[in-house]
């Protein structure tokens, strides 16, 4: 049979809502942390997929000369130092890219489609894109070089900022949890000051009294954190399943890696430990003012 706590904390008005508060904060922190990790993965995926590649677009022209124009561009690219791989994108792939907008019969429509050429730049190559663009224009007027760098940089910058905001939100949420716990603990100490003083005067160490508050708060916070995390994880899981249907093209797969799930699962544990640690420090600070 579990021994009754020396300090009658159960039923305190201040601590009654602690599980709900901790639960809500852990729920929000779980979402914020998940978004942060997702953006981190997405940013990395975008960087890996698109960096180091160029796409050269050759405007549609007469069929008779179009193949020759494409060959000219391919030859120029292959001779350009720093470019390690050149590949004309087949019509079927272009059709697949346009399929979401124009339907499956893109090729049958006989639309004037531009030719696209993928070029891979060596990892340490210092390519002068302005010069390359000029030379391409001389060979095939209207040819355009898209190095993805500008929009990629904007995209990854956006991902980094959003990721920072997500983690900052998570930190703010945890700070809110700490502030709530400090308030609840100080209220509990004030309500039970008579019992606390008796314990103090019969020779209880501060740590003994702090443990009374910590074990009670641990139970409340653990229950709240478990519920908050379960709900948060359910939302992330649902978003992951829903996101799987939307992913493709620019949007990377909306999924957390097993390691990221493990990090997410550590969040409620860390939150509870933070709460218990905060309670201990708060009690000891207040008791420290007594003789």
């Amino acid at each position: 049979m579990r021994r009754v706590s020396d300090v009658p904390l159960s039923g305190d008005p201040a601590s009654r809502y602690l599980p709900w508060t901790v639960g809500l904060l852990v729920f929000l922190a779980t979402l914020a942390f998940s978004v942060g990790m997702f953006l981190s993965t997405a940013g990395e995926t975008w960087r890996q997929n698109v960096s180091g590649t160029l796409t050269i677009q050759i405007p549609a022209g007469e069929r008779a000369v179009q193949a020759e124009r494409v060959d000219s561009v391919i030859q120029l690219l292959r001779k350009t130092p720093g470019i390690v791989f050149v590949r004309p994108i087949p019509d079927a792939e272009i059709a697949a890219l346009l399929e979401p907008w124009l339907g499956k019969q893109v090729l049958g429509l006989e639309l004037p489609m531009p030719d696209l050429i993928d070029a891979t730049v060596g990892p340490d190559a210092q390519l002068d894109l302005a010069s390359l663009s000029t030379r391409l224009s001389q060979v095939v007027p209207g040819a355009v070089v898209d190095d993805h760098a500008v929009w990629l940089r904007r995209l990854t910058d956006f991902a980094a900022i959003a990721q920072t905001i997500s983690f900052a939100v998570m930190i703010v949420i945890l700070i809110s949890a700490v502030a709530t716990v400090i308030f609840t603990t100080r209220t509990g100490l004030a309500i039970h000051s008579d019992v606390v003083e008796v314990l103090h005067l019969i020779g209880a160490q501060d740590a003994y009294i702090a443990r009374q508050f910590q074990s009670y708060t641990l139970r409340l916070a653990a229950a709240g954190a478990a519920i908050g995390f379960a709900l948060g994880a359910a939302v992330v899981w649902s978003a992951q399943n829903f996101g799987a249907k939307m992913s493709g093209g620019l949007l990377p797969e909306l999924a957390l890696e097993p390691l990221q799930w493990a990090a997410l699962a550590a969040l409620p544990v860390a939150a509870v430990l933070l709460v218990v640690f905060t309670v201990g420090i708060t009690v000891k600070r207040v008791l420290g003012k007594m003789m």
Partner: protein
Amino acid sequence: MGMRFCLRNRLGIKTLANGVGDIVRFENVGMRYRMGTEVLHDVSFALQAGSFQFFTGPSGAGKSSLMRLMYLAHRPSRGSIAMFGRDVSTVPRSELAALRRRIGVVFQDFRLIDHLSALDNVALPLRVAGAKEGQIRDHVAELLRWVGLEGQIDAKPTTLSGGEQQRVAIARAVIARPQILLADEPTGNVDDEIAIRLMYLLEELNKIGTTVVVATHNEGLIERFPHPRFHVEGGLLSGPGIDPPNLELDTAQGTDS
């Protein structure tokens, strides 16, 4: 019995002959609550281990404040206090808890914890000292039998009479075998018969070596149990072996603390 004689040094400040067996030693102690006026002035006395001492005086004279200093609930605003030979002002805070465990206290209003049973209330000093649960129940039950509460082990304080609550408070004060027992107006809330039984209980504890200090304004009790007494009035201590207070000096010291 039990007192040390108070002397004055060349500066006129009271000092005590250093007694090897002193368990409590106050030297020129003044006390105030926060920034209020001083409630004790130049209190100097010493108690020897194994003594039985009354502190008498009217309500509001400063007896409870004196007791609070002795059970280490409050620091003096001036002067020095030594408990068990250690100057409490130099004892690190982390060691004060261990010092308090050598002091048993029966509070004026008993201060039992209402949601705990008599057994759990009495067991508190053992638990805070880290005693094993297996050893606590038998030990506490035996003590509750000794104070005549064998049938009330699981009773909550609110269901006990004043006399029973008092005995639980005494059991809690002595369970950890303190070297000194401080009882602040222990008979204030009980009738005369229970008060006399309590005094016999305290005398029994004294006979087995516990130093007993009782603060009371019950003159009848003091006459019936002839132990040495100090009188506290207006924050000043008087009694056998204590010089009459030097009011001029007290006033001067009281204003500069």
